[in-house]
């Protein structure tokens, strides 16, 4: 079976500036991959290209073996996302939003699926509430319900727990981990919460200035580079103390 996501030599230039500079990586089945890096590193640009809302300058993206450039519709039917910067329309209720996006994704037995999502993300009491009046944590749960409505094989999560309280964030993390473990898909997860990343991700990619500087297991990677934890490693990379991809710390 093909990888859930295979990105090869992906590049995005704005004039002479490379926002993403020839990166390659895969997300395998039942795997949660963390895409980490400081602000402006190219994480969101990468996610936007995978979502087909930004055209790469060069390189390829395959979702379940489908070339996104050629089979956009089929590839995106297997994908979904939730991002803090893309809330659902606030003038529609939770149910209405889920129904509309379910129809767009061509979800079979949509009513049942919506009820399942409402149950899964504890939205029963908010079902007929307009999304715009929900708290940021509740909005995040609705976005996650939308992101799961089509049972995506590739789930892209851009800081999914950023506005959740610690207890809800932990519940959501557990849910997403269970989904990744028992489903057939994989997750690409960005977060600035290194403890969360260490807890959830099977593998992390560190991005800086559009390049992948290093990748590995978030639990062992800090030790390999002489750092105490992932946060220290992140700060080192943000300050560009590391320049090697696979070598020893400088």
């Amino acid at each position, binding site marked *: 079976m093909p990888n859930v996501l295979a990105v090869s030599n992906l590049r995005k230039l704005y004039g002479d500036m490379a926002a993403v500079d020839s990166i390659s990586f895969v997300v395998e089945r039942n795997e949660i991959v963390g895409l980490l890096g400081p602000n402006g590193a190219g994480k*969101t640009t990468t996610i936007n290209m995978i979502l*087909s*809302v930004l055209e790469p300058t060069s390189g390829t993206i395959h979702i379940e073996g489908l070339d996104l450039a050629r089979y956009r519709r089929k590839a*995106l039917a297997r994908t979904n996302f939730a991002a803090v*910067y893309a809330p659902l329309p606030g*003038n*529609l209720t939770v149910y*209405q939003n889920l129904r509309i996006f379910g129809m767009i*994704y061509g979800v079979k037995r949509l009513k049942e699926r919506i009820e399942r999502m409402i149950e899964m993300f504890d939205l029963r009491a908010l079902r007929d509430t307009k999304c715009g009046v929900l708290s940021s944590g509740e909005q995040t749960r609705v976005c996650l319900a939308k992101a799961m409505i089509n049972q995506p094989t590739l789930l892209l999560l851009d800081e999914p727990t950023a506005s959740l309280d610690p207890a809800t964030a932990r519940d959501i993390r557990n849910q997403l981990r269970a989904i990744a473990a028992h489903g057939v898909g994989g997750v690409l997860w960005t977060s600035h919460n290194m403890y969360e990343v260490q807890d959830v991700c099977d593998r992390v990619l560190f991005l800086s200035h559009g390049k992948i500087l290093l990748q590995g297991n978030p639990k062992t990677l800090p030790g390999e580079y002489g750092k105490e934890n992932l946060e220290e490693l992140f700060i080192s990379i943000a300050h560009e103390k590391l320049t090697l991809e696979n070598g020893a710390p400088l």
Partner: protein
Amino acid sequence: MTFSPAAAIFLRQFYLVRGSIARFLPLFIWVTVDMALWGFMSRYLNQIASARYNFVPGLLGAVLLWDFFIRVMQGVTMAFLEDVWSRNFLNIFATPLSISDYLAGLILSSIATSSIGLVVMLILSTTVFGLSFFVYGILLLPFILVLFLFGIALGIVGSTIVLRYGPAGEWFVWPIPALVSPFAGVFYPLSMLPAWMRGVSRLLPPSYVFESIRTILAGGKVPVGTLGLAVALAVLYVVLACLAFTWTYRLAVRTGLIARYSAESV
């Protein structure tokens, strides 16, 4: 194109109109005001002008059809602008929805909203002001078709402008009907216009409709070719508008505008 995604865009518009009095009332308030204004104006003109010309079908009928055209255009742009106002571009365009699905959804929304306005106008103009569409005969159907198609075309052009220039681009969209109206000859014959304006009018399908209305009321016959040309022009503009939208969408995807507009407000 598949039905379900286009129906989702239509359903979204239905939910919004149903749930908001601010969206529901304008569907018929403005056309009601227009019918009252031009209905009384037509009556007054009938009183003071020669009895040979009836202003009710000539003026009120023309205003009704022009209002219908504006409602069709705004039906498309309003449905599109809902995505702009709710910063929904990223959610919408990161789905399997194709551009043809999306445009079909906007057009379905426009058919529904403009039909409400049309029905209200027909009821008012016939019951209160005695406008009879039998005067136009079977030609009423091609008249409505031409104005509908041209309204769709300009609605898609308006959406294209916003897609290209961002949320603030909507200020270019609202004046479009006002810019077109002097050339369309809604209120006066095209012979009143200088030659260069008549040249522009010949490129605008509505001008053929309003000239035909005056021809019918003057007892003349409308050549089939005239309306055929109007329909052909309107179809051509719909095709060109769809191509322009698709081209602009691709440009927006290439340059990152789609992602940027999601974060940008008016």
